[in-house]
């Protein structure tokens, strides 16, 4: 029996037919999926329902319909589960007057951590904020605020971690460090859910994605597999060559190629089978004595997948 890629075999979070509406507005509509250990990306346009879903998963709001379980319990009623869940929200909670260290320590105390100051120190080091932890949060840059929020969410060693735009404002080096950190956390067996509109970043963090459009589940699973699921949209590949027309017409005579377009030194090819193209291209080029300087699939990225999901083409 095959299960849909929306579900994992060892779920920590299970979502069954969840809907949430605010008056007339339906924010989340009949979503069923599950999350397990590792990093899962949650994607969607603004207003797609991602933040609402995350909030329900964190137990902050009650679903209008359907059921949700985190680590086996309902996060809304079982507050003990909070000790195992960390949330890094996108909006800025107002803690400006606290120092970074104190903010994290309070979080540790609230979560009932055994040794709050050492847990806080660990979390602060993990996010690279040792130098700045003694300063007040109101003086922090946006990237620093994000990192201290992450520290706050890590301090109770959570099994489940929700990150809403965690890299917002972080500088290039911090971003790489944070992504490494998230990978480490995921490798340790935690369930990490990341929501972000910057798809390049999500690509670096998560192989499994859940995509929402207009409150509904639009796609789920491995991003390459999702792309492959668009069977009526052939792959687009760009090929730069010194004698493009010669190569282009040869390609056109191949069955696996649906269409060929030549613009200056570039050939744009559409094919249903990337593997087939990739295997025959070098020998074809060699036999025609054509020099290839670029071969690049153009729509495998998460951005392209996303575009197809939202716009259908």
């Amino acid at each position, binding site marked *: 029996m095959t299960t849909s890629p929306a579900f994992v075999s060892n779920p920590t979070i299970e979502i069954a037919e969840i809907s949430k509406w605010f008056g007339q507005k339906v924010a989340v509509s009949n979503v069923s999926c599950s999350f397990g250990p590792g990093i899962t990306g949650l994607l969607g346009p603004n207003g797609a329902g991602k933040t609402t879903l995350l909030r329900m998963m964190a137990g902050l709001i009650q679903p209008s319909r359907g059921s949700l379980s985190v680590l086996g319990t309902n996060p809304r009623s079982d507050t003990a589960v909070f000790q195992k869940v960390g949330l890094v929200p996108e909006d800025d909670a107002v803690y400006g007057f606290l120092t970074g260290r104190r903010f994290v320590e309070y979080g540790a105390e609230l979560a009932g951590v055994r040794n709050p100051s050492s847990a806080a120190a660990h979390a602060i080091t993990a996010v690279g904020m040792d130098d700045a932890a003694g300063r007040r949060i109101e003086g922090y840059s946006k990237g620093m605020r994000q990192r201290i929020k992450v520290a706050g969410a890590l301090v109770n060693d959570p099994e489940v971690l929700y990150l809403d735009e965690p890299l917002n404002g972080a500088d290039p080096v911090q971003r790489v460090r944070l992504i490494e950190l998230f990978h480490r956390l995921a490798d340790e067996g935690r369930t990490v859910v990341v929501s972000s509109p910057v798809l390049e970043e999500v690509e670096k963090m998560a192989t499994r994605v859940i995509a929402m459009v207009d409150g509904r589940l639009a796609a789920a699973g491995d991003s390459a597999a999702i792309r492959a699921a668009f069977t009526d949209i052939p792959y687009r590949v760009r090929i730069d060559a010194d004698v493009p027309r010669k190569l282009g017409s040869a390609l056109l005579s191949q069955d696996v190629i649906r269409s060929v377009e030549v613009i200056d030194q570039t050939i744009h090819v559409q094919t249903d089978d*990337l593997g087939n193209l990739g295997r025959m291209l070098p020998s074809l080029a060699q036999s025609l004595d054509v020099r290839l300087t670029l071969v690049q699939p153009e729509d495998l990225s998460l951005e392209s997948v996303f575009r197809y999901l939202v716009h259908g083409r």
Partner: protein
Amino acid sequence: MSFGDVQALQDVDLEVPAGRIGLVGANGAGKSTLIKILLGMLNPTGGATEVFGTSAQRHPLAVRSRVGYMPEGDCFPPDQSAADFVSYTAELGGLPSSESRQRASEVLTLVGLAEERFRDLGEFSTGMKQRAKLAQAIVHSPELVLLDEPASGLDPDGREDMLNLINRLGDFGMSVVFSSHVLGDIERTCDWVVMLNEGRLLRNEPLAAIRASNAVQVVLLDDPAPAVAALEARGARVRTADRTLDVEFDTGDPFVAIRDVLAETGVGLRSLGSKQTTLEDVYLAEEEYTL
């Protein structure tokens, strides 16, 4: 334009040509400080700044009449319509009131707010506000536009639209300084890059120069071992990471060699191209250097 050394910036000394210029760095690296100095909003503690040959310190007003600014945060009165406010900012920029209304309408249409332009700015979503901010930055026909995190808060579609708009600004005869911490956006839109790191200048050169490298990057579909062996036999230096190879030849044409090796070994090709050093690579290298 040339800059000099400053407070939150140190010994930043550079000249930048017209075009699409990326200003990159972390928050706190000095990007906003630099922008404010260019606008004459802040005075550097040392050194001098010139924009289009005019001193930003001595003649800030002359500079500002040729420059547009799209700030990062909120800057709109909630109870005014977009058309009204943008038309007002046009007048503030030195346009006669007869022209202002017309231009405000045109510019708002250009950024995709044609239908919403008579609604109050307080009702706008984040994406709409970003577009309106861009509109007020270009309505007075500046020669240079300074964009501070223009895609912030936008979803992937909105980002894409904004980046396309930014690309088109160059077609309208405007130079653009695009300040952002999202390196991918900069790599997609700019021809020249100013990289700041903790208040100091890391790089100031054309993007192409930064990205250029001698290596060719090849991603394979199958086990790379036969291909690696064959390439090395031809004298290449190959670095392998899973199925990704970075191939460097000292002499000869690397592309032809790679093509031939793949044709002969039958290893499938996923992608091929000159390895482009990314801006992220530059920062990481710098980090390792200072450590």
